[in-house]
């Protein structure tokens, strides 16, 4: 008679919990040295639940199947010159932002989860973190493979790894992960698994990837959804982490709330660039950034925070301010890049009249009043042969490293300037949220590596912007940057399409 097949719960128990052992001659505290210093109290690791109950054997089986499907599509995409089927060559610029901004932080996520996957005393948490670590490495690899096809045909994709921690806007996601990885293990999980994965990544990987499909980019939508199928598991880990910490000890509640507040705000600042990708860089539109925020943050996050209210957790601090800013964020961000388009590693452009009309319709409260007139002026100047580029670089926020383009909620014509003094130096911030984060951890944030400051201090390979871009950022100046109009990307596209 064949042995009885284990049910899922028993199998999970045997292949995770049973892998742990009692420490007979070593001190557990020395084996897990980071577990207590954040003030988090764990009374019983066995209460940890992994709702997916995925064991290593099932993990390898399903991940292998996902990879086979994904790589079959990459091959088909490359063999059939899939890049010629995209809606519009402007779209590829969103991929340049993605490859420089997202792919390297997937690598940081891999490193971060490998670290915490060693540091937790509970075996359930360790196994879940190890799987996530491997997932994140897979995401890096599949993204590089998907983009390598575009790199053969378009400019600006050749040095994403060299740019990610140097370029003045790429340092935003890079420093976000540096902050999380240099925190304790529980803060890391709260930052990445909960605030980032559960609350915010849907905004990038779901509507943007659906948009990639709608713009004919088969390779990107496929790696996006393949990555996101792992994210669903990561999100579940994020929700499990927060519930576990809150159930373990009431003293954990204020610590968790502080992290929720901090990492929600940090996350919304990183998403500025995603808002611009959604509203300005997808030629065929799926939904506006504002609509995506309503579905994936306001509705989904609203349900989540109602569920967590029984533990005494409140929605994140400044959520009202973040929500009010969503009517402005993409417009301010794209305008900023249009202005500083000489110093960016991708092309910028004025939205077409049809796109301007779509933005007016999607942002009835703000677009016609504050932003459309700027684009009408830019159009007029361009028609007169006076395409405008701001010289130099913008001031950056000392916490989130985003350019200081954020405006006051009650007056969108007024930039937010917050500042504080610490040990005789003055520090500047784009928002009250970023100000508060700095004030709470000044010794950490005085160390911020701010790209614009570094150029001015002479640490970036040259005294003028062009030298910095060429020598330090590794950009092909005059080719990778400037307007889409007249770019080599645009000229090649026209040749391919007329052939």
């Amino acid at each position, binding site marked *: 008679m064949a042995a009885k097949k284990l*049910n*899922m*719960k028993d199998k999970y128990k045997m292949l995770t919990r049973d892998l742990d052992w009692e420490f007979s001659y070593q001190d557990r505290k020395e084996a897990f040295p980071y577990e207590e210093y954040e003030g988090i109290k764990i009374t019983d690791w066995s209460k940890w639940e992994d*709702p*997916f*109950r*995925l064991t290593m054997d*099932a993990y390898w089986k*399903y991940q292998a*199947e*996902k990879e086979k*499907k994904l790589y079959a599509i990459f091959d088909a995409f490359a063999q059939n010159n899939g890049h010629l089927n995209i809606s519009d060559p402007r779209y590829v610029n969103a991929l340049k932002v993605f490859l420089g901004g997202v792919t390297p932080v997937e690598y940081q996520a891999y490193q971060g989860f490998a670290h915490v996957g060693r540091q937790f005393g509970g075996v359930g948490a360790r196994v879940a973190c190890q799987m996530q670590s491997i997932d994140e490495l897979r995401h890096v690899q599949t993204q590089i493979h998907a983009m390598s096809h575009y790199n053969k045909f378009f400019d600006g994709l050749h040095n994403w790894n060299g740019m990610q921690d140097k370029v003045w806007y790429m340092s935003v996601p890079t420093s976000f992960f540096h902050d999380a990885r240099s925190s304790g293990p529980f803060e890391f999980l709260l930052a990445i698994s909960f605030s980032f994965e559960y609350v915010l990544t*849907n905004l990038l*990987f*779901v509507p943007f*990837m*659906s*948009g990639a*499909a*709608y713009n004919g980019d088969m390779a990107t*939508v496929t790696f996006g*959804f393949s990555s*996101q*199928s792992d*994210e*669903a*598991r990561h*999100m*579940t880990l994020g*929700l499990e982490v927060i519930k576990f910490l809150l159930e373990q000890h009431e003293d954990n509640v204020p610590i968790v709330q502080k992290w929720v507040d901090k990492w929600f705000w940090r996350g919304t600042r990183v998403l500025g660039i995603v808002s611009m990708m959604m509203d300005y860089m997808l030629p065929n539109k*799926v939904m506006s950034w504002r609509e995506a925020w309503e579905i994936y943050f306001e*509705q*989904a996050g*609203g*349900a*989540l925070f*109602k*569920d967590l209210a*029984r533990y005494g957790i409140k929605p994140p601090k400044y959520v009202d301010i973040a929500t009010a800013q969503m009517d402005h964020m993409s417009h301010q961000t794209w305008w900023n890049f249009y202005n500083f388009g000489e110093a960016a590693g991708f092309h910028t452009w004025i939205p077409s009249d049809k796109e301007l009309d779509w933005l007016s319709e999607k942002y009835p409260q703000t677009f016609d009043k504050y932003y459309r007139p700027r684009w009408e002026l830019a159009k007029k100047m361009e028609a007169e042969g006076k395409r405008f580029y701001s010289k130099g670089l913008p001031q950056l926020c000392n916490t989130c490293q985003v350019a200081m383009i954020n405006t006051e909620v009650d007056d969108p014509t007024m930039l937010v300037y917050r500042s504080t003094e610490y040990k005789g130096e003055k520090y500047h911030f784009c928002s009250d949220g970023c100000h508060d984060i700095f004030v709470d951890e000044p010794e950490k944030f005085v160390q911020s590596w701010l790209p614009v400051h570094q150029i001015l201090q002479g640490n970036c390979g040259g005294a003028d912007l062009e030298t910095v871009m060429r020598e330090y950022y590794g950009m092909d100046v005059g080719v990778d940057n400037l307007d889409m109009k007249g770019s080599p990307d645009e000229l090649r596209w026209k040749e391919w399409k007329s052939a």
Partner: protein
Amino acid sequence: MNKVYIALQDNDVSRYIVEAIEADNPDVKVQYQPAMIRIENDLQLTIKRETVEEKIGRDWDVQELHLSLITLGGNVDEDEDAFTLSWNQ
């Protein structure tokens, strides 16, 4: 009312999973978007192995869901017979 949701890749397997979800959760709202299907329901949504097997005409392991899954919202409970999303309120 708080909604749980699940998004699946728009592929040939998901078609049957969606049929099964609709059969077992009559009030569910299904939206088709480019390359994906988003399904939401008030407070709870269950995918039953037996119903999926009936629709797809073969054995189906609940963990195969990982192959088509894009994202979800809600507390997850999974065993060999069903996959459930819920909010406790």
